[in-house]
């Protein structure tokens, strides 16, 4: 499947089928630190993804001074 990553924007391939959680672990990402989006819809970590899916993994933690 195609996985769009941010900061910087890029696309990587991950084999399916897998759950959202498995895709994130494959990419060494912490599920609590991202949102996973498919067709403008949010996905929970137990959702199944097919090899033909296109998803975005969007980081949610931003920096900045207090």
């Amino acid at each position, binding site marked *: 499947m195609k996985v769009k990553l941010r900061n910087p924007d890029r696309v990587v391939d991950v084999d399916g089928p897998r759950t959202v959680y498995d895709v994130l672990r494959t990419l060494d990402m912490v599920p*609590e630190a991202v*949102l996973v989006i498919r067709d403008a819809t949010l996905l*929970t970590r137990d959702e199944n993804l097919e090899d033909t899916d296109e998803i975005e993994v*969007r980081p*949610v933690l*931003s920096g*900045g001074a*207090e």
Partner: protein
Amino acid sequence: MKCKVCRGHAVVDVRRHNAAFCGDHFVDHVRAQVARAIKEFRMFEPEERLLVAVSGGKDSLALWEILLELGYDATGFYLDLGIGSYSTRSKEAATTFAEQIGASLVVRSLSGEHGYTVPDLARLTRRVPCSGCGLNKRYELNRAALEGGFNVLVTGHNLDDEVATLFGNVLHWNVDMLARQAPVLEERMLDPPDAARRVLVKKVKPLVRVAERETAAYAVLRGIDYVVEECPMVEGNTHHRLKEAMTMLEEASPGTKQQFLFGFFKNASRRFHEADSEDPLVACANCGGPTVEWERGDQAVCSFCKTKSLVEARRHQPSPPRRPHRRVR
């Protein structure tokens, strides 16, 4: 996963509440958390005029929308920091959103007000960009709120922001900061002889009960077009590293962040507050804004004015000569 409320298909899981929600019920959940924080910490009343600091990011845009949805009188304030294309896109996101929701947005720029940008500040003061940026944002927000006669200044600091700040303050045992970390900072007047002049507007953080992942999910579900890109000057920022560390703990043990922060509010912050004596505020000799008395003399000058004069002085100096490269044998 199923929605905790309607048993429909869930789109967001909130593990620390042991719950998942469909889109509509998640939106209700976030709004209820904001309403609860406003009431619990006595942030403001419906008749008060609010000025919301809007950056173009998810937290401030989501918060602004929630306050309007809850029926509050909330005006936005955007400060253009002059950070290249990042600021251009942020400003676009803020102004477009204001038009979409039909809300009023005050727009100012650091270069228009003071003649410099955040990159100028960092270069000329030779300090990390986030420190000068934070100082200038706090100063300009407070000034705009005073000038506009607003009752309360509202910022989009979320649970993760407050947890990272608390974590940093504990790691360094920064007791002065621990005494002042709260979801509400009351307004302050000048101390005698200038008392009766309000110099610091009440500041509140209604997203304190909402995690950063939840504000992002809220923004996506509500179709809020926020700037996803990270500020280019933030790289390697300590605050960001602290957030990542706490998020690893949260992943392993959901609820850690909320227990840490709300346990502090309940059991510890009062102790730091009682041990702290608040410095009396006097007027800055330059701008009339607040500064602390220990700097008093005939020329008590606030940190903002000191930084601004440093920038102006260095701007007209030739840049320091570069050290010659040492030849490596």
